[in-house]
């Protein structure tokens, strides 16, 4: 993505007005700029044109199955944890036409969708979501079958991370090594120090170019120390923890653990966790034809392993029980992903916990299964 791991030492101090300059600089480069905005009872991605569009003085209280926006008594712009939408939808679309076949009589011809990707710049991407993009890149670009649509969109994107100083009640990025500090995968990274100043780091040559156009001051050692301290404090305030040591194997070893039945009794099977997850990439394909037979289309849509249709093969669905579907998801995220792609499939953003209507907590489930303390009951 043009972002390298070489260290760009140019940490700088940015005043709040610098954000306006940053937005203008990105707009000059033909980016549509998106950032966190307050709408529909949430702090979620939306178009921004000035720093004033950012949610200054807003935060969100997050807990299992619950999310509420609230006012803060300061004017910080990035003092909240990851919101409802991930960046997934911008790069790995929720619905997309793959190709269509059209005919006015015979012969027919195939029309492939070739759209120029939108040039999107995101300001305020949480480190967990930056890490999630790296995971999606691994699956959708660097695996055997790259997805050209995803790749094109990713290559035309610009990422301004915002390191986390206000983790939420369901956050556990620290456990997953994904936050609260973004180590790589961004063009620029901000750390908000107070209402008016931010530390900015460069993560790519493009980021450096943009920073050169923005008024900034060199960041002294004391400023860097303040940023480090803010993130160290954030690590201590993570709402959740997940002990990942030996977890992958423990999940493999405990397929019939009674915890799976317990969680399946509460699980609605609605699929919200997978749709809210920044790394769940499953899609399904469907073929449709028009009523007059002149046009047929192959479409793809986000899918979920919580649906019965997801595991449908000739004769029926492989994973019939809610238990098997829930177990499939948790074990894929936290163990099978590792064998498949070499990374965990979870970044600890906590969205599956918050956006589960009944507040099922993956960290609790994983810990209960890994503990192996519960006696294995006879299967009914």
């Amino acid at each position, binding site marked *: 993505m043009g972002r390298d791991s070489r260290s760009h030492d140019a940490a700088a101090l940015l005043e709040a007005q610098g954000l306006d300059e940053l937005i203008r600089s990105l707009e000059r480069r033909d980016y549509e700029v998106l950032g966190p905005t307050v709408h*529909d009872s949430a702090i979620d991605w939306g178009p921004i044109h000035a720093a004033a569009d950012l949610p200054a003085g807003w935060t969100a209280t997050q807990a299992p199955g619950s999310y509420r926006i609230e006012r803060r008594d300061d004017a910080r712009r990035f003092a909240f944890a990851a919101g*409802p939408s991930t960046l997934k939808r911008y790069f790995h679309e929720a619905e997309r036409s793959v190709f269509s076949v059209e005919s006015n009589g015979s012969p027919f011809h195939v029309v492939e969708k070739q759209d120029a990707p939108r040039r999107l710049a995101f300001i305020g991407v949480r480190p967990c979501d930056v890490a999630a993009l790296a995971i999606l890149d691994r699956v959708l670009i660097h695996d055997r079958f790259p997805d050209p649509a995803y790749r094109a969109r990713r290559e035309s994107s610009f990422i301004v991370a915002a390191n986390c100083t206000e983790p939420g009640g369901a956050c556990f990025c620290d456990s997953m090594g994904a936050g609260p500090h973004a180590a790589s995968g961004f063009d620029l990274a901000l750390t908000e120090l107070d209402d008016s100043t931010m530390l900015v780091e460069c993560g790519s040559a493009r980021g450096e170019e943009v920073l050169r156009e923005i008024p900034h001051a060199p960041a002294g050692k004391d400023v860097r120390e303040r940023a480090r301290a803010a993130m160290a404090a954030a690590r201590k305030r993570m709402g959740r923890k997940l002990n990942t040591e030996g977890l992958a194997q423990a999940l493999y070893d405990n397929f019939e653990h009674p915890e799976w039945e317990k969680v399946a009794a509460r699980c609605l099977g609605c699929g919200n966790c997978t749709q*809210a997850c920044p790394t769940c990439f499953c899609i399904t394909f469907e073929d449709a*034809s028009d*009523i007059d037979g002149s046009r047929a289309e192959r479409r793809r849509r986000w899918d*979920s392993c919580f649906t019965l249709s997801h595991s449908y093969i000739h004769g029926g669905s492989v994973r019939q029980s809610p238990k098997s579907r829930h177990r499939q998801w948790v074990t894929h995220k936290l163990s099978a992903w590792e064998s498949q792609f070499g990374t965990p499939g979870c970044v600890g953003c906590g969205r599956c916990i918050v*956006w589960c209507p*009944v507040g099922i907590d993956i960290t609790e489930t994983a810990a209960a299964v890994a503990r192996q303390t519960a006696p294995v009951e006879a299967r009914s």
Partner: protein
Amino acid sequence: MSSERKQRIAIFKFASCDGCQLSLLDAEDELLKVAEAVEIAYFPEASRAMMKGPYDVGLVEGSIITHHDADKIQQVRRQCRLLVTIGACATSGGIQALRNWKDAAEFVRTVYPSPDFVQTLKMSTPIAEHVPVDFELRGCPINKLQLVELLSALIAGRKPNIPTYSVCMECKRRATVCLAVSRGEPCLGPVTMAGCGALCPAYGRPCFGCFGPMDSPNTVALAADFAAKGHSHAEIERLFRSYSAWAWQFRRATEERRQA
């Protein structure tokens, strides 16, 4: 469907408001194409030309609430190669199935000046309790695009793309912020079948389950969660007892709770 002969379609009405069959007339952009692609042989709501059966497809709207209905659905079944129920009434008994928990005779006595003229069954029942049903289109009313999709699939001889998972999937695809989580509003989306495009939540109104239960809904767990969040049994009952009240998974949500 390899034959060149057009599919003969018939539309039948039982106890209902006509909203579902009107969806066909409401399919403005597609209506002419539909009329060209199939032979609408019997559609009293739209045309006086009523051709006799048999029909390739019978679209059945409404629930069974009289002896006459119960007889008629048997005849309809015999005349239709495929029978498709359209809408909540035909599929689960509709809003009128609320009588199933009450005394219908008492309603008749209260409402009508001459109750003797009203012949009605004690229960409002779905079509599938009377005859085999080949396919269901859900909703109150149905989504006209799903009806066009079903007819298109039938003509092409392919599987119709009618999802059976939750409304939540559609909410997330269109990036609607979850009303249950962000506002604490009780929403039936997690147990309700998709197909409406998650219409109500997109306008700030929680799902009231008009598409009925999805393929494997955990309604008991959702009802338990509503109770844990402070909703009374009466409130929960009202939520589950609306357009798809008589669907067994929705019934189970409140009946098992009462026993518990």
